[in-house]
């Protein structure tokens, strides 16, 4: 019984154990400013994972997020001069649109989201390559600071990135737990047929979930673009798999209806701790990927709640 109650806390426990382990070997890890910087740096990844949570929460997946972010870095860089801060609207609209289209293909055309979003990602990539003229573009520093400088300051020692992440997390959490939309997402994830038989607009809800994941991908891409002060069709590469891993390690299984955005917060932190542990523990460069994989298996084995899974596929 007590084990049952502990289960939701397994991801937190895993995180705590990892942090303590790394800190025990190298106390420099506990340096507060280092830690804040560490966490502030993963904000784009976290936002991406947050969006991925919505897709996975309904039992799907969104493989287009990385390419959407790539496209957005280009859009933001190209149109910053023209639109100033309103380029954000353009970026978010692009993310929302691509996500919604993926959702429409998945729900109305019965193409599994794995393939639909992968293919939509290709289309976004083409767009990014075309728009960028296939080169790395950089933002005009002044225009960047004028429009988006607020993203990267510090207030009372708290990086603004963290504030943004916190606000987005709060919005996502509110959406998930307090709104009819969030409740409908859960119903679709846990029992789609029952949701249909209860008269929910299931198709619309699923399309919205993918649109949201696209939107978050766009926000992540925009932040990343501003942070790096430029854009190109490959800039956001490397985000996708990590975002998926972060969601899964956090305890939101691919079957849907379980977990949520708070889990994703933990999952992202676990991934980041593992990754920076490689640097702190001076793991040999050629060994890093292998060790990352092994720790991942251990972490997943520890965090997933098997009681909610009838069949493990």
């Amino acid at each position, binding site marked *: 019984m007590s084990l049952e109650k502990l289960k939701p806390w397994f991801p937190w426990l895993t995180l705590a154990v990892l942090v303590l382990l790394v800190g025990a070997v*190298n106390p*420099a*890890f506990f*340096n507060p*400013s*280092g*830690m804040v*910087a*560490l966490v502030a*740096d*993963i904000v*784009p*990844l976290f936002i991406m994972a947050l969006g991925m949570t919505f897709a996975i929460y309904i039992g799907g997946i969104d493989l287009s997020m990385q390419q959407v972010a790539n496209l957005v*870095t280009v859009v933001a860089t*190209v149109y910053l*001069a*023209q639109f100033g801060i309103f380029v954000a609207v353009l970026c978010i609209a692009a993310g929302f649109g691509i996500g919604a289209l993926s959702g429409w293909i998945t729900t109305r055309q019965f193409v599994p989201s794995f393939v639909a979003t992968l293919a939509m990602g290709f289309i976004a990539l083409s767009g990014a*390559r*075309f*728009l*960028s*003229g*296939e*080169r*790395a*573009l*950089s933002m*005009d*520093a*002044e*225009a960047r*600071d004028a429009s988006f400088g607020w993203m990267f300051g510090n207030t009372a020692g708290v990086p603004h990135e963290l504030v943004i992440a916190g606000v987005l997390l709060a919005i996502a959490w509110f959406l998930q737990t307090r709104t009819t939309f969030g409740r409908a997402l859960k119903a679709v994830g846990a029992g789609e047929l029952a949701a249909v038989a209860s008269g929910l607009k299931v198709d619309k809800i699923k399309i919205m979930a993918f649109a949201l994941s696209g939107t978050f991908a766009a926000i992540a891409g925009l932040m*990343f*673009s501003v*942070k*790096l*002060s*430029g*854009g*190109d*069709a*490959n*800039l*956001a*590469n*490397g*985000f996708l798999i*990590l975002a998926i891993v972060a969601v899964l390690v956090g305890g939101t299984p691919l079957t849907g209806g379980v977990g949520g955005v708070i889990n994703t917060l933990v999952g992202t932190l676990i991934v*980041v701790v593992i*990754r*920076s542990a490689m*640097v*702190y523990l*001076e793991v*040999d*460069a*050629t060994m*890093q*990927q292998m060790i990352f994989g092994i720790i991942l298996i251990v972490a997943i084995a520890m965090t997933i709640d098997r009681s909610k899974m009838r069949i493990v596929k």
Partner: protein
Amino acid sequence: MSEFIKDFIEKEKINRRNFLFASAYGLGGAAALGALGPTMARAALTDPTIAWSYRNRTNPYWNEIVSGGEAFVQSLGMSKDALTHLINEGSSEKSLADVKAILAKTGGNLALAIDTNDAPNARPVVEAVAEAGAYVSTLWNKTDDLHPWDFGDNYVSHMSWSDEGPAEQTARILLDAMGGKGGVVHLGGIASNNPAIERLNGLKNALKDYPDVALLAAEPADWDTQKANQVMSAFLTRYGDEITGVHCANDTIAYGVLEALRAEGIEGMPIVSYDGNPQAVQLVSERKILATVFTNPHWGGGITAALAYHAAIGSFKPSEEPNEHREFYGPTIMVQPEDALEFKANYLDSVPTYDWNDFWGPSNGPITYK
């Protein structure tokens, strides 16, 4: 119809580019830099951690870079394990995160050599290093508006290679071998990479003097042997015997091209490549590749680390050096069949022992911006 579509898209693309250039030019004038100066420059560090951050270990080029870094560390009397490796696996995000992590770990007591994977990533990396009071030297990727002298001492130097000239030279060798007529195809690197763009430009420059040679097609092969293999196969279908020469953006691409030709039983096709990897040099000596350009990654890898390290321990003060010592081109050596074996013996089979204090000796002049 396909021609029409192609032309249309090509035009659109050119328009788009023109627009970009125009806007970049217009704004470039107004750009004011240096707002982010050094915040906590330390006079010097003692016994800093030396780190190299690069793309991956699966490419011989980066292995050469790393071997240089290790040779430098050994020259300081340390074991080569003392060099910390940060591998970004092609992810700018990881590249930056790793840098932040090691800055936090060392508390800024760091001499960093880095290729930031993508040009836009250079600015946040340099800013983070400067803020932590550590020292960084960059290689290859940075945006044109980012300069070491805007960061005091902490951004020590940037080394790059001007590939356009050497690529044009190899292209001339290729075009001459083709007898100044026929058709050439180009297999490029990752489309947005600077060297990929320059190497293609080199070919285009050379072609101006060879009106009878047509550039049949140029496709990115992402520095990847397998991708190059497939692209070359498709080229063979499309152009068949029209192809009388192949211009490759680097050696790994050339390997894929060679195998695609081999599968078809085609021998003696003139090919040129770039980078001067040992295998490619061997192939040059066998005349399977007509020329490659050796950029001496071993020296590049070593000297980039050396610059960061010596600036960090105060052996020299970067801000007192002229600009051409802070942004400079790396050396290039053309390798052709006649001298390939000799070159291989001198540079590859037994790696020369370099003087890691001779920072600018083999370099190739200051970086110029167009």
